């Protein structure tokens, strides 16, 4: 029982990452009709926003300490971050400690700009091109982006811890009257889940309750008609692309403490998030969210030792298996409209 | 003798009853027109005939073959061809190829793995395609890409594609929609000419000029049901038809 509860928690957590990426992916597909293989790279860039900010905050000046030596026997160079010098050691250390949450603010303008440049500089020329061309050019872009990141940050994962306040974990079991230590869950993962839920809610509310959102939703349903109404849909779509980039980027920022960011983390998520989008239904926002959580939970269950003992290797293929079954029985996905992308 | 007999066909989409107990038959060798206002269910009806839609109830008999439940290509293989309202052609292929494909389908059946034959050296099919193109006056464009044709030419091409299969029954969905008067007349002439080959035709048409020039019998479809049937001149005066068209002045 508690094992199952824990796996559901795991699944929700993993699912919220899938859902956030898939949400942006399907937003871009639904509004712009573009299959964006570079979306995973946006997630990765988000994570590296966190890395960059923490590096910026730890920028240091060097003093030479004659009393100590480094590994070569030379006098030790002691690095002191500027923020510690400016705000005093304690406040400075706290600022560095909180670099991941601070990176949320830092990443929003950056991701919006990245999204803007991508859409205006490249994607907009591909609206009318075949999906294969879109896939190819965005795939090329994804490679270029990740190689640039690799050039500056290296291939090794870079630890980017959450603030100390979120270290440790919450004893869920004890809260609901079970034995202590049976169901514990890290604070940061709970934060991640809540954050994801908040972002998803905000995107939905935005689309639901603003005029802008209404136009975009109308555009998703029927682009030509909205265009005929004299509404400049292109500008709004550019905004949507930037928004999708910000959502992916925020997902990345907050993910950085969970898994140390590395340059290929986007590619690792790319295929999965496509499967999520297709299972949810191409162009369906609620579908993407639902499928994200569903696949996250299924994946968690499939990794249980008892399940693997029964079906060896199931943890490796469960997502694909689900995708195949869904596509064969319900080709439009869980919540998709009929006929989308069926060429 | 009836070549096509439709009995009690019903078709609903959600709550909308598109076809309501339709009974309909076509006599072999005749031209039968179906008219009706927009949304009367004409295209749905045709779609039920060619297997694009499956009727909820009722039967469609072609000669003594039941078409209900057959796949579109099977229906075509027994001799039913259709010209669509917006021309359905192979836009990326040349005109010759557009005709050769149906001709091959007619000769070789629904699937044939001719991976090593050279299509250009198949004299029978090439000749046939060439003749068809000449028939519809597109011979000089034989090597053009079909997608680049004008709308009128596309219609003629699609007609030629269907004719190259020597169908027993040809279904035409508004063959002159959107054409100029001159083009329309050309098409009427063309359809009359092919009438000589003894192909039974069912025409859905808006343009009464076309209907009265071609049809030997007319059925009127309104709100999913056949409300009148008879010779063109009888239909002209039928008050129910007048009403269905809500003062359709051109009657």
């Amino acid at each position, binding site marked *: 029982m*508690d*094992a199952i509860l*824990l*796996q559901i*928690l*795991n*699944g929700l*957590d*993993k699912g919220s*990452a899938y859902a956030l990426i898939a949400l942006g992916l399907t937003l871009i597909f639904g509004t712009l009709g573009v299959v964006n293989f570079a979306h995973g790279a946006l997630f990765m860039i988000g994570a590296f926003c966190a890395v960059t900010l923490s590096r910026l905050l730890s920028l240091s000046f060097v003093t030479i300490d004659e009393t*100590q030596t*480094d*590994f*070569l026997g030379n006098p*030790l160079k002691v690095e002191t971050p500027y923020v510690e010098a400016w705000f005093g050691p304690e406040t400075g250390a706290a600022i560095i400690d909180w670099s991941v949450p601070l990176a949320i603010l830092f990443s929003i303008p950056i991701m919006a700009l990245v999204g803007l440049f991508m859409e205006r500089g490249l994607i907009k020329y591909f609206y009318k091109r075949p999906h294969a061309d879109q896939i190819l050019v965005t795939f090329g872009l994804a490679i270029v982006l990740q190689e640039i990141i*690799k050039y500056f940050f*290296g*291939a*090794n*994962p*870079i*630890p*980017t*811890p959450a603030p100390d306040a979120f270290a*440790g*974990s919450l004893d869920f079991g004890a809260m609901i009257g079970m034995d202590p*230590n*049976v*169901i*514990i*869950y*890290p604070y*940061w*993962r709970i934060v991640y889940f809540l954050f994801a839920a908040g972002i998803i809610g905000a995107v939905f509310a935005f689309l639901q309750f603003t005029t802008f959102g209404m136009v975009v939703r109308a555009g998703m349903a029927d682009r030509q008609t909205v265009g005929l109404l004299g509404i400049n849909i292109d500008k709004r779509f550019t905004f949507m692309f930037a928004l999708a980039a910000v959502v992916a980027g925020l997902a990345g920022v907050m993910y950085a403490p*969970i*898994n*140390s960011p*590395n340059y*290929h*983390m986007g590619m*690792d*998520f790319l295929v999965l998030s496509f499967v999520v989008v297709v299972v949810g239904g191409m162009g369906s926002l609620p579908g993407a969210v639902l499928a994200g959580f569903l696949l996250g939970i299924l*994946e*968690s269950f499939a*990794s*249980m*030792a008892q399940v*693997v003992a029964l079906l060896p290797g199931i*943890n*490796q293929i469960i997502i694909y298996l689900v995708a195949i079954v869904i596509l064969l029985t319900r080709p439009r996905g869980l919540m998709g409209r009929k006929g989308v992308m069926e060429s | 003798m009836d070549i096509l007999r439709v009995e009690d066909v019903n078709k609903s989409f959600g709550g909308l009853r598109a076809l309501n107990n339709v009974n309909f038959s076509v006599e072999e060798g005749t031209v039968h027109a179906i008219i009706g206002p927009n949304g009367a269910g004409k295209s749905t009806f045709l779609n039920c005939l060619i297997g694009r839609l499956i009727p909820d109830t009722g039967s469609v008999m072609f000669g003594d073959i039941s078409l209900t439940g057959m796949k579109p290509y099977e229906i075509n293989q027994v001799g039913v061809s259709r010209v669509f309202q917006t021309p359905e052609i192979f836009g990326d292929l040349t005109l010759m190829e557009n005709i050769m494909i149906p001709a091959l389908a007619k000769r070789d059946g629904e699937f044939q793995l001719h991976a090593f034959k050279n299509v250009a050296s198949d004299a029978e099919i090439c000749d046939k395609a060439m003749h068809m193109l000449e028939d519809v006056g597109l011979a000089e464009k034989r090597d053009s890409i079909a997608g680049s044709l004008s709308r009128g030419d596309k219609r003629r091409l699609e007609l030629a594609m269907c004719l190259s299969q020597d169908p027993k029954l040809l279904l035409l969905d508004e063959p002159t929609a959107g054409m100029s008067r001159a083009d329309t007349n050309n098409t009427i002439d063309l359809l009359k000419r092919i009438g000589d080959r003894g192909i039974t035709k069912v025409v859905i048409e808006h343009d009464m000029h076309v209907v009265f020039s071609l049809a030997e019998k007319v059925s009127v479809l309104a709100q999913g049901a056949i409300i009148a049937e008879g010779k063109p001149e009888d239909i002209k005066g039928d008050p129910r038809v007048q009403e269905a068209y809500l003062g359709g002045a051109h009657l």
Partner: protein
Amino acid sequence: MSLIRKPFNRRSILRAGALGGTALAMPTVFSSRAWSQGYLNEPTGSTVTLGFNVPQTGPYADEGADELRAYQLAVKHLNGEGDGGMLSTFSSKALKGNGILGKKVEYVTGDTQTKSDAARASAKSMIEKDGAIMITGGSSSGVAVAVQALCQEAGVIFMAGLTHSNDTTGKDKKANGFRHFFNSYMSGAALAPVLKNAYGEDRKAYHLTADYNWGYTTEQAVRESTEALGWETVETVKTPLAATDFSAYITPVLQSDADVLVLNHYGGNMVNSLTNAVQFGLRDKQVNGKNFEIIVPLYSRLMAKGAGENVKGIFGSTNWHWSLQDEGSKAFVKSFGQEYGFPPSQAAHTTYVQALLYADACERAGTFNPCGVVEALEGFEFDGLGNGKTLYRAEDHQCFKDVLVVKGKENPSSAFDLLEIVEVTPAAQVTYPPDHPQFAGGALGTCNPGA
């Protein structure tokens, strides 16, 4: 960064005889066994070309970059430039700093991409196009085994780089291949006594194992050696290589009554699984009245860096560490540090030493002929290259030397000071008979000079 300014001439003089414009057709020698006629890619000019095949793209690119740095340093030292590094501490004095056998050392580089296929393609191009006489490098066992087999077939020497799976010198051993790195068995054998001292004899271990070959051999080695001292293995679970979030594998550990978690993971897998395990508070847990502990059998400094704070206090084993205080290690750290500004990783040490050992073997054999080199390396005992007295065993071409048991440092003084040496396990304690069950099957075959 130091750059060696040398025009790059492949096999320049080798073909000199044909330079007059005369056309001659000659059969090459890839397969026939006529040994006395020479051997594949015999250097006949004034230079000799070595092939450095390291991961330059993919997740191990940083490790590959460090390997390449070490190789370049080794080439410098072999050619008599720089401070000579370990040449002065090496017990064999055959190398004189004038290249190998008087020929200047040149090198070509390639990208293994950490894929068997790509690594073989890259090695082949070095052998076929650039005339490399020896191939070395790599950062995974799959690649090592695949390239080793290729070198055996082609008839060049392979010095294996980073490869920790038992199979490289076990069931997949080859006569033309040598491994300086330690292996899964040695990790288990070195760790077990230390773990017993630190955590006691009555422990219940839970293994998470990367679902591929290296994971299997490491799990087996650690399991067998810990069980031998009384530990119980509660559960072993295989995790997909592609996994990034290990929460679904970590939480069941909480549910079991295990009090030790063994992470048979390497690279990104290890960084993520360890980070996740620490996040889930495993280390703050008390089970069976004992502190819950985590063990990472194979450590590397680069991975430790990726895992950050999470490695603190966690035991593992490593091949070599820059804080070793023997003369050889000190000389190497100094010369590497001066060149590049930071201390070398174990990958750098392994590859540097292998380049030197190959060169030394050629000198001692008096030939580049792979069969001569194999003879010179088999059973070779030496000292002064770090890790104390070292033996290249003839039976399986595995290197036997001291193994380091390390632990994540609590108070690192720099970005490189992440591990502290807990114990230097003497070679005798990690030595096993060549027919040990974990290494069963396979045969060296005979050396192939490719000619």
